[in-house]
């Protein structure tokens, strides 16, 4: 090294040695830890699994408001009371929904001469977004527990602190309820290279990718099995058979919910010309501001300065966004509605916005509405969600069959409807966008996607009898076996061999005593 360089370094506080990447090494150790936890947890019986799920749900519920406030503070996105509700919905109600879905016990089907044994994935790498950090974390943690997997979170860097704290809280609750330690972990210092390295780890069995398009694509390119979901951009058709008042109320409620950070939120309203005026009145009554042409231009310039969404607007309030765009609205305004005349790549306002701004386009008839909806989805949001308001069953069916989406919410707020909170869809923060949306799953992701089944299939020839499973049981390990503290020292010296053997046999019996 030249002396000149050395001289300069004397005034430089940067490390003189290039240290290895600590986060990478620690994360690799965390994955190994998850491996141990998953291995132990895969032997738990259903009662133990449900007990742990309930304990974690309760801890999640108790801290729902705490983390809602924290997430809003840390990310600057969303609304505390709405995030509180989402967090609560991702706790007990989620477990309630899957209460009767047994992903733990084997299934015996004498008619098909088949036995099916659930096999958990093992270690889940779960990405969580900045928009819905805690609710997604709650949801993925409970999915992991219900399917007997270990989960390691890689939070969006904007929501790193609240996620790390929440993961630690859920882990503590799980362990207190008998789960093996290391079941729920969080990467401390997420970065793009680190997450990419983790996604490619051969010790990760499946990636649950929620996040931006590039991250989801990276998950699919990692070489590991992945369930990633594409972006939403829900077109909403308001038929002339709709009641404008209720439709507008649902839409404004949905669009203002948590400042529209749910990917299931309404994006473009397609209003049947016959309902246009009544619907606009109803929107205003529900708390929406209908923008003038000049305001639309201001909004477009602010939200899509170079054709791409201005992330500063994500999760902000309608009033704040109007102000940033350069116009004023009264403080009670919850949603900005921007009338547009085109949809598709030529009109950026018809893209996904993730803030309480709706585009609105009038269509002459149902067929035109369907056509424009499909045009929007062709640009973005394929495989995700759409909504239909109206009473005409045939049109609802035609709308859904024509569109490249896997869920069409009917006469309900789309944010909560497509995510399974205002409909009977599965409650989810992962909206499967299927093949339309370059994803492996087209339904709302649930714990069933994290388990595969080993099938014992008998010869179907009637001459070969099926076995009698009435007295056959899988062996489970008692819940505390995997989570015990460090081993006590082996039998003290001086103990004779027979006694030692007895001690070990006792220990063995203790370990298998919880068999069911």
């Amino acid at each position, binding site marked *: 090294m030249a002396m000149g360089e050395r001289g300069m370094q004397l005034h430089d506080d940067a490390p*003189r*040695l*290039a*240290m*290895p990447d*600590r986060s990478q*090494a*620690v994360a690799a*150790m*965390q994955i*190994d*830890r998850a*491996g*141990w936890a*998953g*291995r132990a947890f895969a032997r738990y019986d259903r009662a133990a699994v449900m007990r742990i799920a309930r304990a974690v749900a309760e801890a999640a519920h108790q801290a729902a408001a705490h983390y809602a406030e924290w997430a809003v503070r840390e990310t600057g996105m969303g609304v505390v009371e709405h995030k509180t509700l989402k967090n609560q919905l991702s706790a007990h109600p989620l477990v309630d929904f899957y209460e009767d879905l047994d992903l733990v016990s084997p299934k015996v089907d004498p008619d098909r001469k088949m036995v099916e044994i659930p096999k958990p994935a093992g270690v889940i790498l779960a990405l969580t977004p900045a928009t819905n950090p805690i609710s997604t974390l709650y949801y993925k943690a409970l999915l992991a527990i219900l399917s007997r997997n270990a989960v390691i979170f890689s939070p969006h860097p904007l929501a790193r602190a609240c996620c790390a704290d929440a993961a630690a809280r859920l882990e503590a609750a799980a362990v207190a309820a008998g789960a093996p*330690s*290391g079941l729920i972990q969080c990467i401390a210092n997420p970065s793009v290279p680190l997450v990419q390295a983790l996604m490619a780890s051969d*010790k990760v069995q499946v990636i649950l990718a929620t996040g931006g398009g590039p991250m989801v694509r990276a998950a699919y390119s990692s070489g590991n099995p992945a369930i990633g979901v594409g972006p939403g951009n829900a077109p909403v058709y308001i038929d002339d058979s709709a009641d404008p008042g209720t439709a507008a109320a649902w839409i404004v409620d949905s669009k203002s919910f948590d400042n529209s950070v749910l990917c299931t939120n309404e994006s473009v309203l397609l209003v049947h010309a016959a309902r246009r005026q009544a619907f606009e009145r109803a929107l205003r009554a529900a708390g929406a501001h209908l923008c003038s042409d000049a305001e639309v231009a201001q909004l477009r310039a602010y939200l899509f300065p170079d054709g791409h969404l201005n992330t500063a607007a994500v999760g902000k309030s309608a009033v704040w966004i109007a102000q940033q765009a350069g116009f004023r609205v009264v403080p009670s305004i919850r949603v900005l509605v921007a009338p547009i005349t085109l949809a598709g790549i030529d009109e950026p306002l018809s893209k996904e916005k993730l803030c309480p701004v709706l585009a609105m386009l009038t269509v002459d008839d149902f067929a035109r509405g369907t056509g424009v909806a499909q045009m929007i989805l062709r640009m973005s949001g394929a495989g995700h969600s759409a909504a239909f308001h109206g009473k005409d069953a045939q049109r609802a069916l035609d709308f859904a069959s024509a569109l490249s989406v896997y869920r069409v919410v009917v006469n309900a707020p789309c944010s909560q409807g497509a995510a399974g909170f205002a409909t009977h869809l599965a409650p989810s923060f992962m909206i499967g966008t299927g093949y339309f949306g370059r994803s492996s799953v087209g339904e709302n992701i649930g714990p069933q996607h994290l388990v595969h089944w080993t099938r014992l299939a008998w010869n179907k020839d009637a001459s070969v009898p099926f076995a009698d499973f009435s007295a056959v049981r899988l062996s489970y390990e008692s819940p505390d076996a*995997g989570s*015990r*503290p*460090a*081993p006590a*020292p*082996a*039998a*003290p*010296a*001086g103990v004779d*061999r027979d006694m*030692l*053997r007895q001690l*070990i*046999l006792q*220990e*063995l019996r203790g*370990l298998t005593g919880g068999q069911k």
Partner: protein
Amino acid sequence: MFNYGYFSFDSKADLLQKATEYWNPGKTKFWQDAGIDLVIDGREGYFLYDMSGRRLIDLHLNGGTYNFGHRNPELVATLKSALDYFDMGNHWFPSVARAAFAEKLVRTAPGMQYAIFGAGGAEAVEIALKTARYTTKRRKIVSIIKGYHGHSGLSVATGDERFSKIFLADRPEEFIQVPFNDIDALDRALRGRDVAGFIIETIPATYGFPMPAEGYLQACRDLCTRYGTLYIADEVQTGLMRTGQMWGWQTYGVQPDLFVTGKGLGGGIYPISACLVSESCGGWLHEDGAAHISTSGGSELGCVVGHQVIDMLQRPEVIANVQSVAQFFQRETARMMAQHSDIFVGVRQRGVILGLEFDHPEGAVAVSRALYEHGVWAIFSSLDKRVLQFKPGVLLDAALCQEIVDRMEAAMPRARELLRKPARAA
């Protein structure tokens, strides 16, 4: 052709011939005779690769040297970064790496004040014994029968005759040995109040990890205090988180006056050892700090690596992994023992230190060979060949642990067969 750039060999046989001719005929022949024809070529993680390309899972770890596995990427990167800035350094001067590493080590060890560095475990033991003599102005050293503390002048004299007599290095008048777990014998040895230090491995490794009896180590400590003898813990194999805590003596709640560490301290990539001493034992460092000098002891490269080793060991993930590995083998060895009780008769364990007892005077030699044939390398205890040293690394993952057990199961019939052969099994 095995071309290593700097040198090459035509075949494994060629290497063995050269090793016999120029290196160590006795050692080379011993392993060939024992049926363990291992010449380690590649190595990565917890895997060793023989020159034949055969893969072995390493449960020997050279006594914990490869605690983190072979060529741990983080440690390799650490050493490379150190090489871009430091070299071994000048042992006469204070240095940033030595001071930082000394502080790091001392902070892991309540009651200790200074870290004195060496290049290997034996040197650290020399430092400890010399420190004890300086501090007490006594000459005698007591150790346990079948204890092991290295092969240098003072250290070898504390150990088994096998290693001292051959070199006329035994000094029975100054180095007294007492049976392990026999507190009365120690009392008799110390009673004359002329013993400088009592040195003991917290769990004697080369003896096959017999566990200290309940209260034994504390009773030793108390006797040392009573008779003015310094208690020296040899933590070369029991330190560095292998017992579940940083130092084995911590798990027994015994406070030494000084202790030594080595092997894994250098992460298997740079040799370094240390003797940690309390303030009251550090007198010579004040009187004449250059009284012990070591050109390569405390090399700055080793200090950087050692600093990182300690840092890594303190991570909660590592501590959790040690617990998982320890629990796993506790359960699995118990299960295996129940199943193979005709030959497999005992398990000694603390953390990831295990000794597996086999019911034959050379039982572990046979089992070691059977395991070797089944892709696992674990060495028998030199001083008790009934006991197999079973030393899983602190970063072993669940899948590899399971594979180890599966391979052990598969090796048991072969072990049984070897043990049935009359006379020597290997």
